[in-house]
């Protein structure tokens, strides 16, 4: 909402400066977006008279002027304008002034060897117009020496952001009312006088849609002369950022901007039969004033005559019945439209307008008559013509609300104690009425007020929020109690653990291109697809954290990175019960390209491989508190992974805690990645939580007194036997003695038969009370070889 200071002063008697008003606007909740003060832009420019104009000694097109600035000696100014001449009164920019067009500062200088003490300006240089053919010529009696800003008339313009709850401040008058209540002046009463009609309204009006249009008032004015509106109206509209069109259009706009009261003027000759509000018919069209045709439906209200729709009610008038230069008879429409209907219609048509903004917030239902009289008065005054009597169809809602209020609430809710007298005064100034028992009646222009807290807000905002004193929240006794949940602790721990392992945490979009999401979604039971994505690239909610990380890896590789490790902790979005989502906390890791660059000691660069992914998966599952010793390495990591170099880590056959391995080359190709990538996805939600209350004391432990014994075994096994199966068999061969089994060799080739491999394990045996003797060690070794033999393993000789 933009308006000028002089417009505000139409309604507010005030001596306050523009700056003081600006500050107060923000302080009472009418947030100032900007205050543009042309006087500031024109400071340093004065009205000046050219006394003499001589040819410049060194340049044909320049003249040397002697200029009277009203004080002291005349100044010498070099000027190139063809119209510069003795006797001309114009505008001189003094050294130090900043020229609005171009923003450069004027300085005392020498032009072709002649001193110049300023610049005579054109309208374009001062951004007052387009003329640049010569310097400004003011009337001969313009007062030499006065600041040009003062002479020209400078009117500061406020731009205020009006919150959606304040339709009353969608007009300058409402803003003036708030400022007056806040002590910045006196509100001038609205000078609406009933204009008597000279004849009955010749155009019948009615409302056939009392829900959408409860009230439709109107009157005809005959014999108007439409032309440009007077300068003062044009100035006001320009300050509001509106382009003057013609007097009739400008005056309806003026009433809307001044009083928040939209109105419409139809060219009477374009109407036939009665004019009435009704529901649109499905598929009916209206060519609106913005030149666009809108297709309407039966949920929308329109103003129509026998021939068709003339107006998308409360939003935009129609092209056919709008006023033109030729218009001589007009029908004025001042109506009340249902705010919900207006909002719905506007959203459906994707059509905003100044009228819609006001109607959908709720215009003052008690201001129809006054609005119509104000508009009539202005039209008759400016365009002439003869008004008919007012004709009224329907009735606007009453909507008077009485609220039981208690003035102590200013303190108990608003945090500031305000004397009852001051509260009464504030409410009165805002148009509220409070009786002795503090039953408060809200004014008709405040549809937003419907409870005691609203009254608190009014009182407190006008009194000033500066008065609210900081009040500490009560503290619990002693040291603060821990607040984090188990999941929050898990998330924090895992995050710092991954970062400590050398990976960088990324945050990537929650949405993906649908094809990428689909590729990663197999078995997830339906993607969440946005109905109105910003682009097709951001359409599907991610079912996995890997695609976002792969794209991030690609961007890094494209920027020249040779190798990188990225991780992200976030949600996967799956389908849950009752049509809701199932959002699961997940860790994604990608290890792309070089693990170690080529080096003087290590030789060629080493690429990340599946075991790097396995190492991350196990280390991080351990950090997350998963029972890593009980996990099984199984298959089915998913089609996005290399089928021979990927696996899942499971707790029991069904519960998948992680999947890891090399990303499938086809997947990499889709993501435009041309280096090998190892990846891990850790399903943190699947990790079983700790049972029971947390205890701090660990289980009892004392290191064994006797030293552990190590024995090596090498077995020949089928080349296809998973090494993990052999390790598990050895470990469970003698649980009383075997405490650890480490596989240290996997060999195929010379000395090993075709189709077999040699696996060597180091077994750690822990004696209990007494040391092993030879017979015991032999018995343990036999149990180990027997357990291995069940897998077809032969002890190597």
């Amino acid at each position, binding site marked *: 909402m933009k308006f000028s200071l002089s417009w505000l002063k139409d309604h507010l008697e005030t001596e306050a400066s523009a700056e003081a008003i600006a500050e107060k606007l923000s302080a009472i909740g009418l947030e100032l977006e900007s205050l543009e003060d042309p006087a500031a832009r024109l400071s340093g420019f004065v009205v000046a008279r050219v006394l003499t104009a001589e040819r410049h000694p060194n340049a044909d097109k320049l003249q040397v002027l002697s200029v009277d600035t009203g004080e002291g000696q005349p100044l010498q100014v070099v000027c190139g304008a063809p119209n510069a001449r003795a006797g001309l009164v114009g505008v001189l920019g003094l050294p130090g002034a900043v020229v609005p067009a171009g923003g450069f500062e004027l300085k005392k200088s020498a032009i072709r060897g002649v001193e110049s003490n300023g610049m005579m300006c054109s309208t374009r240089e001062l951004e007052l117009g387009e003329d640049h053919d010569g310097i400004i010529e003011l009337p001969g009696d313009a007062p030499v020496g006065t600041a040009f800003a003062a002479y020209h008339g400078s009117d500061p313009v406020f731009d205020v952001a009006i919150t959606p709850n304040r339709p009353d401040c969608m007009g300058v008058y409402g803003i003036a009312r708030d400022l007056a209540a806040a002590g910045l002046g006196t509100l001038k009463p609205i000078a609406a006088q009933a204009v008597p009609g000279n004849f009955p309204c010749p155009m019948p009006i009615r409302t056939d849609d009392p829900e959408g249009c409860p009230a439709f008032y109107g009157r005809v004015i005959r014999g108007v002369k439409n032309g440009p509106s007077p300068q003062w109206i044009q100035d006001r509209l320009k300050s509001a950022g509106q382009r003057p069109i013609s007097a009739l259009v400008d005056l309806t706009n003026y009433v809307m901007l001044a009083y928040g009261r939209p109105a419409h003027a139809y060219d009477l000759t374009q109407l036939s039969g009665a004019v009435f509000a009704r529901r649109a018919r499905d598929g009916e069209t209206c060519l609106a004033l913005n030149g666009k045709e809108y297709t309407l439906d039966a949920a929308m209200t329109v103003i129509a005559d026998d021939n068709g729709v003339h107006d998308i009610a409360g939003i935009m008038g129609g092209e056919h019945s709008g006023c033109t230069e030729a218009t001589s008879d007009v029908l004025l429409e001042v109506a009340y439209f249902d705010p919900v209907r207006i909002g719905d219609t506007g959203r459906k048509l994707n059509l905003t307008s100044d009228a819609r903004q006001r109607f959908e917030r709720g215009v003052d239902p008690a201001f129809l008559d006054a609005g119509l009289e104000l508009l009539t008065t202005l039209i008759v005054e400016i365009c002439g013509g003869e008004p008919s009597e007012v004709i009224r169809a329907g009735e606007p809602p009453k909507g008077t609300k009485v609220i039981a209020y208690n003035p102590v609430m200013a303190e108990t809710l608003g945090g500031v104690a305000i004397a009852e007298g001051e509260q009464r005064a504030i409410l009165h100034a805002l148009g509220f009425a409070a009786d002795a028992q503090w039953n408060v009646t809200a004014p008709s222009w405040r549809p937003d007020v419907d409870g005691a807290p609203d009254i608190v807000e009014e009182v407190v905002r006008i009194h000033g929020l500066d008065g609210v004193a900081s009040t500490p929240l009560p503290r619990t006794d002693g040291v603060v109690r821990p607040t984090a949940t188990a999941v929050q602790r898990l998330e924090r721990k895992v995050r710092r653990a991954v970062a400590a392992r050398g990976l*960088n945490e990324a945050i990537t979009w929650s949405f993906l291109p649908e094809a990428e999401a689909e590729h990663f979604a197999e078995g997830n039971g339906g993607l969440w697809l946005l109905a109105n994505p910003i682009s097709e690239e951001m359409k599907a909610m991610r079912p996995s954290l890997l695609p976002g990380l792969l794209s991030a890896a690609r961007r890094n590789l494209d*920027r020249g990175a040779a190798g990188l490790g990225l991780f992200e902790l976030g949600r996967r979005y799956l389908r849950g019960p009752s049509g809701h989502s199932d959002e699961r906390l997940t860790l994604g890791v990608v290890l792309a390209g070089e693990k170690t660059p080529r080096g003087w000691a290590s030789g060629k660069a080493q690429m990340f491989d599946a075991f790097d992914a396995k190492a991350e998966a196990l280390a991080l599952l351990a950090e997350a508190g998963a029972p890593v010793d009980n996990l099984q390495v199984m298959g089915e990591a998913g089609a996005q992974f290399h089928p021979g170099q990927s696996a899942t880590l499971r707790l029991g056959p069904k519960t998948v805690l992680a999947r890891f391995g090399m990303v499938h080359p086809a997947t990499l190709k889709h993501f435009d990645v041309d280096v090998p990538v190892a990846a891990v996805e850790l399903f943190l939600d699947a990790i079983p939580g700790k049972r029971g209350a947390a205890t701090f004391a660990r289980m009892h432990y004392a290191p064994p007194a006797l030293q552990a014994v190590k024995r090596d075994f090498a077995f020949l096994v089928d080349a296809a036997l998973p090494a993990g199966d052999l390790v598990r068999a050895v470990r469970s061969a003698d649980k009383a003695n075997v405490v650890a089994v480490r596989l240290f060799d996997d060999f195929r080739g010379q000395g090993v038969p075709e189709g077999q491999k040699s696996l060597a394990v180091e077994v750690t045996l822990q004696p209990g009370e007494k040391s092993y003797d030879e017979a015991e060690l032999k018995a343990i070794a036999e149990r180990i070889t027997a357990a291995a033999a069940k897998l077809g393993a032969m002890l190597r000789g």
Partner: protein
Amino acid sequence: MDYAATRDEALARVAAAQDLGALEALRVEFLGKQGSISGLLKTLGAMSAEERQTTGPQIHALREGVSDALGARKDALETAALDARLASETVDLTLPAPESARGSVHPVSQVMDELAEIFADMGFAVATGPEIEDDWHNFTALNIPESHPARAMHDTFYFPDRDADGRAMLLRTHTSPVQIRAMLADGAPIRIIAPGRVYRSDSDATHTPMFHQVEGLVIDKGITLGHLKWTLETFLKAFFEREDIVLRLRPSYFPFTEPSVEVDVGFAIVNGKRVLGGSGDAPGHGWMELLGSGMVNRKVIAAGGLDPDEWQGFAFGAGIDRLAMLKYGMDDLRAFFDGDVRWLAHYGFNPNDVPTLSGGVGTAA
């Protein structure tokens, strides 16, 4: 016999021995079982007591002298051998050591941890809610009915889906629905913050379609705007670790609060960047909008299943990405979500810098 001459000769030969082998041969020659000096010692037994009195000490001195010389020579040769070996083992320690990657924690995560730490001290727990929400939790329960103009202010991402109750599914436009979920789940009194991802259909230089917000909610008895002001002041002072943070409350409008206040914070321009602190009205200072807040609307309390005549409270919301930018000096929001390892290495945090109250929640540059 001239023991002195024998000694001199032996010592000369020991000194001339060039390696440990030659030295060992000399030891055997002199002191071995068949050694020449060992032989002399054996002659003592055949001597008279008087002769032994004079000769004995001479022979013993000879043996000791040679034995000491052999030992000293052995030490010298061993030291020389070790020195030679070490000299041959010299490496160039200006060569690079094996590199290990340095990881980092994203600024948004770090700031979320800082928020949790600060608010824990004021008795706030951390609450969460789904990002794929229904329109009742995201709008209706927050006093934003279907036709409310405020719905249009939120550029909402919708799904074509509806839940079992027929509610439209959408991406939450703010963290405020967690208010409703917390009240319905836990009743009152409540002190929570709810950090998380939120979504608006908005994308330009300073807006991203996904960003992070933190919600705060206090529901209790006798809570006023004064408590809100104290809480935000206390939080901002702790977060920016400055005692001179000055807040300015401005009346505003949010459907879910009444009264509603916008919170501005004073700043100064230092080296071209906004640095919070001081009154915005002081010379060289200004005010910037930082938070939206207010007293929770009675309708919202009722939607949360609580009696608004019994309970009242305040709520606030702030952008986490923005708080991170203000504190740590990033100036491009889009970079937060790009995953550029150079940016992450620069603006990310050492995982050992865990925010704690005793160590200061912030991490110095």
